[in-house]
């Protein structure tokens, strides 16, 4: 699974949580709060992204994440490990 694939999955979740957001403004370098997500929205985006990718991670795994790319990286790494197993 590529990083692009994970980003697309996360982007789809962001649009579901924030339906008023224009898809073009969601770029991987942005922070979730830059696209209008409040703290609950951000937690929901993380949970729903895990569900979309069928991953189960503790929320601590995302502690160092500062932008969308960080979130995508954690998800992608876990996904890659899962595929090797």
């Amino acid at each position, binding site marked *: 699974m590529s990083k692009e694939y994970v980003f697309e999955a996360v982007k789809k979740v962001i649009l579901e*949580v924030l*339906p008023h957001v224009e898809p073009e403004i969601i770029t991987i370098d942005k922070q979730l709060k830059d696209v209008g997500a409040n703290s609950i929205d951000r937690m929901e985006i993380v949970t*729903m992204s*895990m569900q979309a990718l069928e991953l189960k991670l503790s929320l601590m795994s995302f502690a160092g994440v500062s932008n969308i790319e960080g979130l995508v990286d954690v998800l992608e790494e876990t996904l890659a490990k899962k595929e090797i197993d």
Partner: protein
Amino acid sequence: MRTNNVVGVTGMGIVSAIGDSLASFSDSLKRGTSGIRHNESAARPKPSVNIVSAIRDFVFLEKLGKLKNIPEEKLTKAKRLGLRAPFVIQTSILSALQAWEQASLFDNPPLASRIALIIAGQNSTQNHQYGLISAFRENPEYLSPRYALEFLETNQVGVLSELFGIEGEGLVVGGASATGNVGLIKGHQLVESGMVDLCLVVGVVAELSPLDIQGFINIGAMGGKAYIDKATEACRPFDTNHEGFIYGQASAAIIIEATSSSSLRNVLPLAEIGGGIIVLDGNSSANPSKNGELKAMTGALLKARLSVTDIDYINTHGSSSPLGDKTEAAAILKLLGAHTPNVWLNATKGLTGHCLYSAGMVEAIATILQMKEGFLHPNKNLNEPIDKKLKFCGDKFVKYKVKAALSTSFGFGGINTCIVIKRGNF
């Protein structure tokens, strides 16, 4: 505390099985249109009685789009707060927006700190939770973080205070089937005492889960068993063949406001709230009490400084429960005495079903619409009244201008309530 504040109703809103605006709801009342039908529900297990006056074909954005005179900024906010919220929250947003608009509160509302918010509702997320249980059993990790906000009844307080910028007191009240009246009574107290200028009271939809419905069937309160193939005949308040309550859904909002506040916006109240009271029987069970009901009605009259002979209409609790109807009829006869032939009675639940938490609110709205428009709605399925002395409306609407009304609501746990609504001199 007794002050000289005159307390009016300046706005109302409703989303129900028989109308999603005051105009359509009033039209249904006049025609005697009932929302009670056999319900094709996807819920599992299927309840053994599936007759409901349900809010059908509900699409939040469509309903929001139909509202008139709502400022763009409020619509955007309502969409953001409501679009992904549970059904019960969405209906509260819609009825509250209608009431806010009717009271002309979008421009020049009172100070935010002088506005209170009361949510009349309890256990309103039962069906929402029931729907999440099977997925939760499989994958608890995927439970939405939003759930922690949403399962709390006070989520309604948060959402509606954010939507309308309310910064006074905000709380949730419950009183089983009397919840709506409890909300109106507490709202009236807040305004009459001068603690606030205005109180938005919202009666929430009872969205029962299959578990709750079966519970009401098993305790013997819910009717419909003998009417499985005749759903439209199942709800028959005060009729000899009544069998139990039929469940209904409605969200209802009422703005209670001091006339000293509404006059600043040149808004005339739709009616006056004389006040009301809550009286307990000291009874943990489900059975009603004639004495408790009588105490609520006499107490409400006293609160409103009226005598029995000032009353010309009672919007009854009339739930179609054999013991409930019989007890209420006896209490009303005792209250009215020689005045009985002068007082019209009807039961709105015959058309709306029993909306449980919002029932008292729905019935207050029905009372005020009838008062304003000079009619009394028909009593559905009242073929053989259990009492011949009481003056029940028949199967056609009556042209009549109510001057002063009582509206009663009684709940499990010995909770008796009654409010007084007057046409007022506005």
